[in-house]
């Protein structure tokens, strides 16, 4: 399969990238590992005039502990994240999520964490060959006015299947977006638009440079469901962060539940998360209730567009959330000793 024509640029440092981004128009794309971008280009889903490679930017590949935070460079390969003791210790959900991405032998050495967050949403009607799509009216995401996944939909409901983003949102991570001359920090939870055509609230001249996870003394867990154990995107996934109160060992102080692969972005379930405050860490009944409520909340966003059946995916939200809650709770209990 051939790639469409483009010009390849390889700036030697961050400044070079930002300069280029500032001058080039919307037809420019960042090339990190290419495991998402190049696939889409081969299918003719986008035809950028220019690709700016991050190949020379070793400065964006690191995992550090600094000021009570884990800082990860955007171009850090997934493999490095899996191998990191720091991540395994302080951001277990991210470790679990990264381990499941694609397949270890290959995706992980090229695929980056930045690219993972910024991979485009997917939809079985959209991620098809150029010829397949040419045989019908274009849908919203393809520049048209209809949707094949949900009749009458006025916008695109493509699905975010990023494992990394779901885990990071559960960990309360934020990201740094740099632009020539400026920089801004956004919480991942606030990073998304409400339209699957362009799911990220981000300008084309911006570069994702860093991911920051503050270490909050809690534990996290990530669970996902897929048909196979490798080269398979999740059809439902859930990331959970739990921390216990300093005074009462068994009591939940802070909780974050995020459901992935069910909507245009990972879904931070505020109500369900909040409802766990003050609950006992060993109370499975409460977890079950919260999991069921998560299912109801998440179900309203999902459309039938990533395989399986919608009904099944909805039911499985509850199971994944429950498993992740149990996983995180166990880890908290174990850590407290």
């Amino acid at each position: 399969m051939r790639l469409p024509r483009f010009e390849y640029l390889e700036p030697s440092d961050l400044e070079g990238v930002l300069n280029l981004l500032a001058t080039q128009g919307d037809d420019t794309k960042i090339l990190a590992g290419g495991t998402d971008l190049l696939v889409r280009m081969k299918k003719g889903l986008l035809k950028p005039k220019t690709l700016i490679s991050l190949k020379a930017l070793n400065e964006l590949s690191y995992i550090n502990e600094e000021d009570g935070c884990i800082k990860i460079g955007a171009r850090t390969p997934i493999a490095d994240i899996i191998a990191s003791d720091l991540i395994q210790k302080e951001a277990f959900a991210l470790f679990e999520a990264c381990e499941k991405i694609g397949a270890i032998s290959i995706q992980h050495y090229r695929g980056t964490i930045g690219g993972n967050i910024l991979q485009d949403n997917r939809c079985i009607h959209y991620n098809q060959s150029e010829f397949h799509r040419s045989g019908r009216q274009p849908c919203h995401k393809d520049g048209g006015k209809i949707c094949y996944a949900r009749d009458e939909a006025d916008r695109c409901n493509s699905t975010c299947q990023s494992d990394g983003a779901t885990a990071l949102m559960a960990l309360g991570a934020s990201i740094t977006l740099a632009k020539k001359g400026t920089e801004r920090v956004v919480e991942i939870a606030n990073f998304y638009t409400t339209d699957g055509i362009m799911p990220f609230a981000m300008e084309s001249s911006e570069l994702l440079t860093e991911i920051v996870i503050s270490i909050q003394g809690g534990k996290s867990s990530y669970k996902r469901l897929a048909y196979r154990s490798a080269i398979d995107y999740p059809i439902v996934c859930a990331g959970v962060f739990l921390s216990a109160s300093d005074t009462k060992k068994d009591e939940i102080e802070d909780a974050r539940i995020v459901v992935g692969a069910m909507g245009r972005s990972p879904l931070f379930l505020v109500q369900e998360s909040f409802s766990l405050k003050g609950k006992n860490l060993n109370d499975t009944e409460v977890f079950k209730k919260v999991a069921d409520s998560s299912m109801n909340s998440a179900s309203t966003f999902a459309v039938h567009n990533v395989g399986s059946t919608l009904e099944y995916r909805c039911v499985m939200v509850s199971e994944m959330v429950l498993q992740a809650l149990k996983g995180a709770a166990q880890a908290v209990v174990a850590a407290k000793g």
Partner: protein
Amino acid sequence: MSKKNSEFSVVGKRIPKLDAAQKAMGRAEYIQDIKVPGMLYGRILYSKYASAKIIKIDISKAVALPGVHTVLPGEDVPEKMKMGFYKDNPPIKKDKVCSFRDEVAAVAAINPEIAKKALDLIEIEYEEQIGIFDPEKAMEKDAPLVHEHTKSNVLKLPWNIHYGDVDKGEKESAFVVEDRFTTTGVTHCCMGTSGALALFDATENLTVYTNTQIPSLAQKDFLETLKVLGLKNKRVRVIKPIIGGGFGSKLDTYAYEHVAILLAYKCRKPVKIVFDRVEEFKATSTRQPTVTYIKQGCDKNGKLTFRDIRMVLDNGAYTSWGATTPTVMMMPISSLYRVKNVRYDAKCVYTNNTYSQAMRGYGNPQATFAIESNIDMLAEEAGIDPIEFRRINQNVPNETTPQDFKITTCGLAECINEVEKELKSGTAKEKGVGVGMASLIHVGGGARIYKSDGCGAILKMDDYGKVDIFTGGTDMGQGMDNITAQIVAEELGLSAEDINVVHTDTDICPWDVGAHASRSTFVAGNAALGAAKKVKQKIQEFASKFFDVPAKEIQFKDKLVFVPGDQEKSMPIDKLLRKAHFSQNGTMLMADYFYDPDNESFRKDFKCNLSATYTFGVHGVKVKVDEETGKVEVLDYIAAHDVGQAINPLLLEGQVYGGVLMGLGYALTEEVVQKNGENMNANFRDYKLFTAKDAVNIKAPVFETADEAGPFGAKGIGEPGCVPTAPAVANAVYDAVGVRIKDLPITPEKVLAALKEKNG
């Protein structure tokens, strides 16, 4: 009496695949790798509708694109050019398309990029028509017709049998169970995609490099193509590059082959067409999706009284050899277990789906899924343990089945015992864990589907004791090359490396019907053995004069020709050959042999002895069902087969392991998702093949019943691995959590829904 394993020197040995080294070094040449000077790249344009009239086609812009050599619309294809079993499928369609896979035009250009661009420039105006996608609905009276000239979508094929008296059998039954089972379309997913390269020489003789499992029949098809092009008395040479997987996908000739020929003829240049993965998914065939209504009964002791099956097969829009799979389905239906009263009726129905074709097992997996699932249900109804139930009804050696199949050797009993041992071992029953089994019968000695089931072999020996054998057989990774070499080496006292197996070129290899029906070991093996025996006899005759002993006293081993017990009378075979060659009236040692097994064509009532011998097997599986997610995890798998004689256990295991995993995919994850005839999962991400991480270890014990008819006692084993896998899994799922899934694949959502229904 046949020999014991220890008496063989080459047969029965774990000799690595002869071409493994070149493959492991990346030096094997597949169609993807072949380039010839001046070669153009061909590409095919497909329909954008499942059913439509072609109103107008405009190729002018494509023709004008620099780098394009020719554009071929349907109207430039001779009217008489048709493909398939029914000859109902023109390689490029002119007036009407009947499926998304329909070819509507083709181009040849100097590189793939331009070829693709040219396709984009072809303008076609369609008038969409109503399609029909459900075979059962397509049978209804007022259903739209896929082909207007037919009166009904049901193909006029005579697939029905009735032996004994089913109605009487039912009346005499103590227990009767009936149900409906369905299977979906799955596809071969050869890792090497399809492709062909066609070139004409200066005198218009044609050479086609193609991935085919049927070189001789392909040659015949291509000759037809030349004939309709007005090229009479020309030659066709078919060359097979190394094939990146077959599994039945290459048992017919296809549009890409004929189109490559047409393009090459039109531009007088070599033209190669190679599919990309999407095309491989969309423009190759699936296994026949089926709907099966089955009813079986037994008496109060568990003896089967009758089996009554009605089946509807989704033929798709055109008729390839897949429409003949019911003839193979008849085999398990009439002859798996002993049942006197059998009725079977199958209807192949045109729909606007992609047309279906042969795939490993040739119908047997679909039929066995229904039979073996239903047997477990019947056993439960009768209150008999499913293993015991099978034992009560098991096939035995030296018996003729209702369809007149002459079962000579049969190791089904041994296989049942072995699987029982395995399944009953281990700890007490855990929650969500269950075991299941299913048996199989398959043709093990060819199958006379075509007029001849034969294979030719030509053998020559050189002055250095090396052998070249030119065989009609085809290797596509399954190991026909080794089997041939090992058989010849055994017979002539050589080692496998001394044998060069040439199987790639119809100019030098004799005729063969094709690599199907698990027949290569048996038929090509016997052909090679026949030729080797002839040469052996000639050497014996020569050596007899030389050593001055009767010819039959002369033996062959370790590259020596010798008279046992006489140290003086022994000579390296190469030396002897040179003596034969470089003497007055010298001779070279060559022989040919054509082996056509002693099996029969169907008579009117479909009775006959279809195969010279039959392969039996039993699979057992232990699964764990996650009751929260519905996911089925395979814990252990055992596939026991009666293989006659394992010519090469290493390769045999490879066939079984590969077959079983393909069967597990069929059982659990694989499905071509078609939405109104359009393939929606034409990639490896959405079509779920198991990965190494999902795969389980499989035990593959073999029983060697040493069949008289087989070469050194061997039977075929290419397909059985994937035949009873799905019902074994379905039975295990039932055992584990008490839900019976009757529609393949057994996906988590189906299991969960069934659990929900059961638990209320």
